[in-house]
C-alpha cells in the first residue's frame, strides 16, 4: 500500500497507522493501530479479544487488501472459522484466496517434555513461513500467553517472546497480541513489558443485570488518542465501538423549517415549525398526548415525502397504528408504502449501547430524515441517568451529523410548577426545541395545555395553549383570558357562557333603547302635530280678524266719499 500524504498539510508528520476497519475504533485511535508494530489487547475471558483481532485481520483483507495471519494458541482453526462464521466472516473463502492463514499452535503440557535448552525458532519459522506465503501485513497472536501454561522454562519463554516481538517489528507487520487480564498487571504474564507501543484494555461489566462492554486505550506511543472508556458492542456484524463524543459540534446546519403537523402549533413558532436537523423534546406527564403529538409530526413528515423512523418503547406498531387511527391519524398507508418504519421494543431488551447501535444501524440502512423516539425516559430504566445522558449525547451527535430531525418524548413526574422536573434535565440542554404538554388541574377537572419552553434560534409564543383531543384529532383552542389569567376547561366554558349571556343582555338592552327612542319620537311627532294645529288655528283666527278689519275700513271710506255730494 502506498503511503498516504495528507493533501491539506503535507509537511505535517503523520504517524503511520494501520486502519482496523472496526467501526469507531479507528476514530478513537485516530487512524488505527501503529503500523508495523505490535499492539497488545488485554482483557478478561469473554470480552471479545479474539473477535476483535479476527475482525482486524478480516477487515484488513476485505477493506484494505492487506493479507493477514491469525495464529491461535487457544482455538483450533476449524472452531475459529465456525465461531466467526456466525458473524458473517467466511474464513475458508479468504484462505482459499491466499489472503489468510489461520494456524493453530497447540501447546499441550501433557504431551511435551522439556529436556535441555531450546528456543522458539519453530514458532518463528511457522509464522515467518505463513507471512511470506501470503505476503501478510497483519498478524494476530491469540493468546500467546498459552505458551506459559504449556512450558516450564519461563526464563527461556520470556526471552523468546521479547525476541518474537522484536522480530515482528523487523518483519514490518502490524501485529496484535492478545493477553488475559491479570490481577495486578494488565496481563497475567506481564506481556505489556514486551509490547509497549499500544495497549488496549477490553472490559466486560455487568451493572444491574445489564452488561456493557468497554474499551480503553491505555497507551499509544507516538500518537494522540481518545483516553476515555468507550462502550463497544458485539452483534451480528462483529465489534463496533461507540465514541462518546466524536463530534466537535461543527456540523452543517439547515435553515429549512419543517412543520410540526399539529394544527395551530406551527403558529406558536415564529417561523412556523422546527428547524430541519434540530432536536425536539416533547415532555409531559402521563396521558398528556405526547405520543399523539409525535404521531402528528410523523404523519406530517410522511405527507411531505420524508422518511420517518418511529421507535416506540411503549407500544407495539399495531397498537400505535390503531390508537392513532382512533383520532384520525392514518399512518398505516405510509407504513405500507415504506416511508414510515415503526420499531417497537422493550427498553429492557437490550443494554443502552445495543439500543444505540440499533438506532445507528437503522439510520444507516434506512436513511431517514426524521426520527421519533417515544419515549426516551423509558431508557432510564436500563441505565443510570448519567449513562442515558451519555448515550443520548452520542445519539444526538449522530443525528446532527446526518442532519436528521429528531423528536423525543419524555415522561416526567407531575409537579406543581410549570417547569419540568429533574429527570428531563439530563436531556434538556441537548435539545434545541422543547415543548411541554401538561395537565392543568382545578375545579374538579383536568385540562391539557401546551407551551414552548425554548426554541433555539426562533422566536416563539409565550402562551400556555389549551388543547383538546377529539375523534378528529388535536385542536388548539383560542386563548381565553379571564380576570385571573388564562382560562381552561370548565372555567373557559363558563366564561364563554357568561360572555354569551352578556352579549344577549346587551342586545336586549339595545333593543329596548331603540324601542324607547321610537316611542319618544312618536311622542315628539305628536307634539309637533298638536303645536302645528294650534298654530294653524291661531293663524286662521288672525287672518279672519284681518279680513274683517279690511272690510270695515272699505265700507267706512265708501261712506265718506258719498257725503260731500249731499252738501
Amino acid at each position, binding site marked *: 500500500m502506498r503511503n498516504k500524504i495528507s493533501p491539506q498539510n503535507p509537511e505535517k508528520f503523520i504517524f503511520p497507522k494501520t486502519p482496523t476497519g472496526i467501526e469507531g475504533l479507528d476514530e478513537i485511535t485516530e487512524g488505527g493501530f501503529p503500523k508495523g508494530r505490535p499492539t497488545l489487547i488485554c482483557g478478561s475471558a469473554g470480552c471479545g479479544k479474539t473477535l476483535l483481532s479476527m475482525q482486524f485481520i478480516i477487515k484488513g483483507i476485505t477493506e484494505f487488501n492487506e493479507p493477514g495471519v491469525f495464529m491461535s494458541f487457544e482455538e483450533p482453526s476449524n472452531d475459529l472459522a465456525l465461531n466467526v462464521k456466525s458473524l458473517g466472516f467466511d474464513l475458508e473463502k479468504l484462505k482459499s484466496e491466499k489472503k489468510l492463514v489461520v494456524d493453530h499452535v497447540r501447546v499441550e503440557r501433557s504431551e511435551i517434555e522439556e*529436556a*535441555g535448552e531450546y528456543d522458539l525458532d519453530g514458532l518463528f519459522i511457522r509464522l515467518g*513461513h505463513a507471512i511470506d506465503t501470503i505476503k501478510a501485513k497483519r498478524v494476530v497472536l491469540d493468546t500467546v500467553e498459552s505458551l506459559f501454561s504449556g512450558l516450564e522454562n519461563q526464563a527461556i519463554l520470556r526471552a523468546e517472546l521479547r525476541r518474537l516481538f522484536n522480530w515482528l517489528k523487523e518483519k514490518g507487520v502490524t501485529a496484535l497480541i492478545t493477553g488475559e487480564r491479570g490481577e495486578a498487571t494488565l496481563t497475567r504474564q506481564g506481556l505489556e513489558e514486551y509490547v509497549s507501543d499500544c495497549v488496549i484494555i477490553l472490559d466486560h461489566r455487568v451493572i444491574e443485570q445489564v452488561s456493557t462492554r468497554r474499551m480503553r486505550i491505555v497507551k499509544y506511543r507516538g500518537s494522540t488518542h481518545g483516553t476515555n472508556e468507550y462502550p463497544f458492542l458485539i452483534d451480528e456484524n462483529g465489534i463496533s465501538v461507540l465514541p462518546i463524543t466524536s463530534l466537535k459540534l461543527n456540523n452543517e446546519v439547515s435553515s429549512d423549517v419543517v412543520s410540526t403537523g399539529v394544527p395551530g402549533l406551527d403558529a406558536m413558532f415564529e417561523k412556523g415549525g422546527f428547524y430541519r436537523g434540530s432536536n425536539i423534546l416533547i415532555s409531559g406527564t402521563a396521558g398528556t398526548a405526547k405520543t399523539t403529538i409525535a404521531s402528528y409530526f410523523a404523519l406530517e413528515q410522511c405527507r411531505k415525502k420524508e422518511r420517518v423512523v418511529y421507535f416506540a418503547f411503549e407500544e407495539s406498531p399495531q397498537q400505535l397504528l390503531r390508537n392513532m387511527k382512533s383520532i384520525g391519524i392514518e399512518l398505516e398507508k405510509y407504513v405500507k408504502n415504506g416511508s414510515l418504519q415503526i420499531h417497537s421494543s422493550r427498553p429492557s431488551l437490550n443494554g443502552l449501547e445495543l439500543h444505540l447501535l440499533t438506532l445507528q444501524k437503522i439510520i444507516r440502512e434506512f436513511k431517514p430524515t426524521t426520527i421519533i423516539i417515544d419515549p426516551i425516559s423509558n431508557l432510564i430504566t436500563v441505565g443510570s441517568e448519567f449513562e442515558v445522558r451519555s448515550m443520548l449525547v452520542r445519539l444526538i451527535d449522530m443525528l446532527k451529523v446526518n442532519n436528521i430531525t429528531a423528536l423525543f418524548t419524555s415522561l416526567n413526574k407531575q409537579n406543581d410548577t410549570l417547569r419540568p422536573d429533574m429527570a428531563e434535565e439530563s436531556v434538556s440542554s441537548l435539545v434545541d426545541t422543547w415543548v411541554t404538554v401538561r395537565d392543568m388541574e382545578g375545579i374538579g377537572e383536568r385540562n391539557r395545555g401546551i407551551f414552548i419552553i425554548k426554541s433555539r434560534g426562533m422566536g416563539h409564543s409565550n402562551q400556555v395553549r389549551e388543547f383538546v383531543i377529539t375523534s378528529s384529532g388535536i385542536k388548539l383552542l383560542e386563548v381565553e383570558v379571564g380576570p385571573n389569567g388564562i382560562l381552561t376547561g370548565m372555567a373557559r366554558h363558563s366564561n364563554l357562557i357568561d360572555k354569551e349571556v352578556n352579549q344577549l343582555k346587551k342586545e336586549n338592552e339595545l333593543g329596548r333603547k331603540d324601542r324607547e327612542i321610537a316611542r319618544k319620537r312618536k311622542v315628539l311627532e305628536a307634539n309637533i302635530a298638536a303645536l302645528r294645529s294650534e298654530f294653524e288655528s291661531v293663524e286662521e283666527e288672525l287672518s279672519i280678524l284681518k279680513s274683517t278689519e279690511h272690510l270695515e275700513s272699505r265700507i267706512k271710506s265708501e261712506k265718506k266719499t258719498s257725503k260731500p255730494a249731499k252738501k
Partner: protein
Amino acid sequence: MKKQQPEWQLRLYIAGQTPKSTTALNNIKKYAEEHLKGQYSIEIIDLLVNPQLAEGDQIFAVPTLVRKVPEPIRQIIGDLSNEERVLVGLNIKPLK
C-alpha cells in the same frame, strides 16, 4: 514387516545447523543406540528448508523430538541433554 516399519519412529525438527540442533541429534542418536538398538528410525527435518512441515507436527520450539510411533505422539523439546527426561518423555524404560 518389522524391518520396514520400525517399532520406534522418531523425528527431530531442527532449524539449521545450530549448536543446539547438533547436540540434540547427537544425544538422541546416543540414547537410541543405547536403548532401542535396531528398532528405531530417526528422520531429521530442517525447518529452514521445509518450513511448511512445522505446522503438521505442531512445532513451535526447536529442537523438538517427536515420537510418531508408537502412539500417542509425544514431543520433547530442547537439546535433549537431560537423558532422564528424554527417556521419560519417550516412555522408554531405561535398562539398568
